[in-house]
């Protein structure tokens, strides 16, 4: 009996090892070149994609636009279980292969590298929070766009006309029948749809997350109130994610969708998703490690503005932004409380692993949005991101001469905190009136003086900039300690509830070179000797 047991355990081990190790695993195979490939941009690209390149002074095509060498793909296909997909931008193929097969692939002369892809779960950057009381709907839907200057844009008739926005999400359940989008279907503003998960064109199922996201760009409620700012924009809708846990390949789908969006003339990509601890370590959030972040940077190189949710990990263990919000050319959007210009608790913090500023900007993290049927209040940086994408579309309509990264910079500069920033708010909430505006130097709203009592410093708010009747959290003082590389060593936000001076000390052992403070539009810097 004892021998039988030992045999059982031994066989269990063997079986487990063989099940785990012999079953095909997903790999990304990178190729050395695209030898002997031809490419005609006029045949491949939509006219709008050509226009984008011309407008931004980009070449009509470069080697990354050329197709992957078909001979390489055929050779690869013979050596693996399945060839899943490929990316011309990254000159790579995604395959399912056993270790033996992948070893054989690695000997091919045209293969430059192989990386194992994971097959784990990541959900879109939204969250359900039933604990928060719903705001008044009218108030909320008005506020989420008015905070960014909806009335200014309305007065100028700027609604994103001529700008094409690609939305990548889990699906757009019910959107084709939803009154929130009827005007878009009526005016034929949907220029293309693609489900990369099921490899078909129908995208109006899979989950309502995309429906809610879309509504924050261009939806309206039955009374005709707008939920987003870019109701005149054109749309490309792509399904790149699965809503629930399944082994999946969203990163590859995302990159494939970005190539599709590029081909079909998208100007802006909005994606409200993030990949975090299921695949990566925080120190890998450097914009270079993940496949999706590399793809997102490539999309920016093609002249598109990539807008991505910062993520909802701010109050979780992970804490920081995920991929592709970590990519340097991706506009990462954090979330703000509906009440005030203050970080909403779940919004992921920056910086990136290599200390770059993230999130770049912020928008309202709690919105009134369309769902599969009807409307609801939803939480998540998933919805801050499309608000920002809609705003960006409006600004691009207004300033069509801007290149994508110029637009990126101007969006940052129109943030309510600019030139102040921190890793919770980025540069803050952009507003149409601040965008590309020649602003005069703001008047000081406070003074920073030595506090003789504590040997520290104290901030004296000027009386004319303090409103004793103002709502809670509406008067905020931002303070950061900055090193000589402009990285923040520490930062804090103080709610100013009286004219009582705010005294503080900084840690003299930290390598601080400057203190930076912001209150009501005025930013002040003081060097630390």
């Amino acid at each position, binding site marked *: 009996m004892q021998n039988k047991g030992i045999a059982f355990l031994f066989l269990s081990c063997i079986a487990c090892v063989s099940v*785990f190790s012999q079953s095909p695993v997903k790999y990304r195979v990178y190729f050395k070149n695209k030898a002997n490939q031809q490419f005609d941009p006029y045949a491949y690209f939509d006219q709008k994609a050509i226009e984008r390149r011309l407008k931004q002074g980009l070449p009509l095509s470069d080697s990354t636009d050329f197709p992957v060498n078909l001979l390489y793909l055929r050779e690869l296909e013979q050596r693996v279980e399945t060839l899943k997909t490929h990316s011309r931008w990254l000159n790579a193929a995604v395959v399912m292969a056993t270790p033996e097969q992948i070893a054989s692939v690695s000997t091919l002369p045209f293969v430059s590298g192989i990386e194992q892809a994971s097959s784990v779960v990541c959900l879109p950057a939204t969250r359900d929070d039933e604990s928060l009381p719903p705001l008044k709907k009218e108030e909320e839907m008005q506020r989420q766009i008015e905070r960014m200057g909806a009335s200014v844009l309305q007065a100028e008739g700027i609604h994103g006309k001529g700008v094409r926005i690609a939305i990548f999400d889990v699906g757009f359940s019910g959107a084709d029948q939803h009154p929130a989008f009827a005007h878009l279907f009526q005016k034929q503003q949907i220029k293309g749809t693609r489900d990369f998960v099921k490899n078909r064109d129908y995208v109006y199922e899979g989950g309502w997350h995309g429906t809610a996201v879309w509504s924050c760009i261009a939806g309206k409620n039955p009374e005709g109130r707008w939920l987003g700012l870019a109701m005149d924009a054109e749309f490309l809708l792509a399904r790149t994610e699965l809503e629930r846990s399944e082994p999946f390949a969203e990163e590859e789908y995302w990159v494939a969708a970005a190539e599709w969006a590029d081909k079909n003339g998208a100007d802006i990509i909005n994606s409200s998703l993030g990949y975090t601890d299921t695949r990566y370590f925080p120190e890998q959030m450097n914009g270079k490690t993940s496949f999706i972040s590399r793809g997102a940077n490539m999309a920016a190189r093609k002249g598109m503005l990539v807008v991505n949710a910062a993520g909802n990990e701010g109050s979780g263990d992970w804490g920081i932004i995920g991929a592709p919000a970590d990519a340097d050319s991706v506009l990462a959007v954090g979330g703000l409380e509906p009440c005030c210009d203050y970080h909403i608790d779940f919004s992921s913090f920056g910086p990136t692993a290599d200390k770059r500023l993230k999130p770049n900007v912020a928008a309202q993290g709690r919105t009134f949005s369309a769902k599969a049927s009807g409307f609801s209040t939803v939480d998540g940086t998933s919805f801050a991101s499309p608000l920002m994408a809609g705003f960006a579309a409006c600004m691009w309509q207004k300033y069509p001469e801007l290149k994508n990264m110029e637009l990126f910079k101007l969006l940052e500069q129109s943030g309510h905190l600019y030139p102040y920033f921190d890793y919770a708010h980025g540069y803050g909430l952009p507003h149409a009136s601040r965008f590309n505006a020649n602003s005069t130097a703001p008047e000081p709203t406070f003074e920073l003086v030595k506090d003789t009592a504590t040997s520290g410093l104290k901030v004296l708010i000027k009386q004319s900039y303090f409103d004793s009747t103002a709502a809670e959290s509406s008067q905020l003082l931002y303070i950061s300690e900055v090193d000589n590389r402009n990285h923040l060593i520490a930062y*804090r936000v103080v709610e100013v509830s009286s004219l009582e001076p705010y005294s*503080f000390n900084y840690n003299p052992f930290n390598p601080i070179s400057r203190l930076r403070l912001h209150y009501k539009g005025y930013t002040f810097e003081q060097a630390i000797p």
Partner: protein
Amino acid sequence: MKSLITAAGFFLLLLSAPAQNVILEKDPAIDSLVPSRGPNRKNYVHPYMSFGFTTDPGEAGARSRQGTYGHYQFGVRYKRRLSQTFAVGYEFAYDVNDLSQKQEAGKVAPDTFQYKRERLIFYNGLFSPYLRINFGRRGNQLGKYLDIAAYGTYTFAHVLFQRSDLPDGRVVRSRTTGLTYFQRWNYGATVRIGINKFILYGHYRLSDLFYSNWNFPEPSRLQVGIQFVLK
């Protein structure tokens, strides 16, 4: 040292306490330090809970009832990551082995009488070193893994429950301790297959439960069950 300095700084900050309310305070210089603890970091400690079934019947004369709940554990496991593929570790657990004995002709252990119910329950302390083989790429997650472990247990308490239903309708229950025919020290092997916090395990006793001079056949050696990582 750095944390002390930070704590001192924070204390100073408190001393200089504001009339104003600090609503957000972050220290990214420290926040961004790479932690050494975590599911796929250098060190990881987590509690776990197991529920197992008696799976093999055991030898004739001491057969256990199969499919009954027979194994419970509550323990703490330490994992030391060696590489993305390999880890080693050890665990301590409170382990309960509950053998529900079949009442059938030819039964000899722990006695020859047949009861309505008969359970031998051992309360053990368990120590188990293990080797972990991980499969696939992952972030700071446990991922998919196979554990091969050896274990040793010491029985610090035990009880024999016997219940008889008499013809006149009365029920006689007995509870016996101080049994002398079983070994307090036992050892065996465990195999676990896990996906993140869910684990299937097989737990096989290699040592004989009863002293050889009693000439008892061996009861069930194998339990199979599910385990949950609790952190």
